[in-house]
């Protein structure tokens, strides 16, 4: 039973409005043996998160309909969402006091500036968070 659980693909939810970025993330994650679901804005992201219960969420901040921080706040309000690991992937620097407050309150695992990180490094962080380094 434990083996079955260990070998099951981990599900990653990508919440990102830029198609190019989303495609790269999806392709890389799938090559790394992850199962991927996608949303193009915060609102859809929240809905997918609460319905599909992914193992981890990659979340952009600046998106139409609902921004990433608002989406994260809603996810955290759900009992399941309190523990879900989230990596914020954004190009927005945390130079705004309200953004920092929100980040500290909703506590993602990482707040990463997209342009500073290679995909493989992000994959490593995901694996580390999900504790699947040894499995793969």
């Amino acid at each position: 039973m434990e083996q079955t659980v260990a070998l099951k693909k981990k599900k990653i939810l990508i919440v990102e409005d830029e198609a190019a970025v989303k495609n790269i993330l999806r392709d890389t994650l799938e090559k790394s043996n992850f199962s991927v679901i996608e949303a193009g804005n915060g609102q859809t992201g929240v809905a997918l998160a609460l319905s599909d219960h992914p193992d981890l969420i990659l979340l952009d901040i600046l998106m139409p309909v609902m921004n990433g921080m608002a989406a994260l706040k809603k996810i955290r309000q759900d009992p399941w969402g309190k523990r879900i690991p989230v990596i914020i992937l954004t190009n927005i620097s945390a130079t705004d006091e309200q953004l920092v407050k929100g980040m500290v309150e909703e506590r993602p695992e990482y707040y990463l500036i997209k342009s500073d990180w290679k995909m493989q490094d992000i994959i490593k962080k995901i694996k580390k968070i999900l504790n699947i380094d040894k499995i793969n």
Partner: protein
Amino acid sequence: MTTFPFHRVAVFIISLFIATGWYSLAIAQTTGGPTVTNATTTLAIKVAPGEILPVSVKLSNFGGGSRVDVLVQYDILNSSGTVIYTSNETVAVETTNSFIKSIQIPSGTKEGDYSEKTSLIYQGQLTPATTQFSFKVEPKILGVFRSDFYLYGGLTLIGGILLVLLGHNLFGRRKIGRFAPLDYSNAPPDQRVFYELISDTILGMRQKVGDKALIIAEHIDGLVIDKHTGRVLQLTISPAKVVAELVAGYEKSLGKKVSFSFRNSIKENEIKE
């Protein structure tokens, strides 16, 4: 220009020295019943093919001060006794004569053990006066004999590896010491996460740009840090504002954006609460 008679009075002592001074030998011949002494020492003399083998020769005539013309012959023999080089010259000796003979080892000479044999021939000679010494022919690599090159090269390599390991070890420890996350378990509970966030941000930036990161942090309003370690000592205004100002300061001064990571232990504690 030969002087007579020598068969009774000429007594020669030949001393040969390698110019390095490592080696000497002597033979003596007397007319009254030839005695030849040959003091040969084992040598560690090496010469490369094509290079000069300098031989210091000292001829001493104990035959009464009369001038003698002596034919000095130089032979180089390989380990099987075959002569691979020969030359000779006539030297006039009245009492003593010292000179350095330069023998060029043929450039095609194979590596191995050789001997240099010097013979004296002069009129009235009763027995051959010869002496010889051994030397090695060994090619050079980058101006150093091959065996020395390997020896010293190996030692240098080992020394280099040890230095690198030592340096890496020391630097690694220093780095760990400088960049290890600082503990803020004594920070005000409601601000601990900010202390950690700010501290980790300063350390992370310090890894990238050095102590400039500390200098910039020192000038952020509301942030009090240890100037040497970057430890956050106090936050005197809104912690979120301090974080935002710090990020803005780094971006403005260094042109670098700031990513964050949160410490798991804190998160777990808060979830439990």
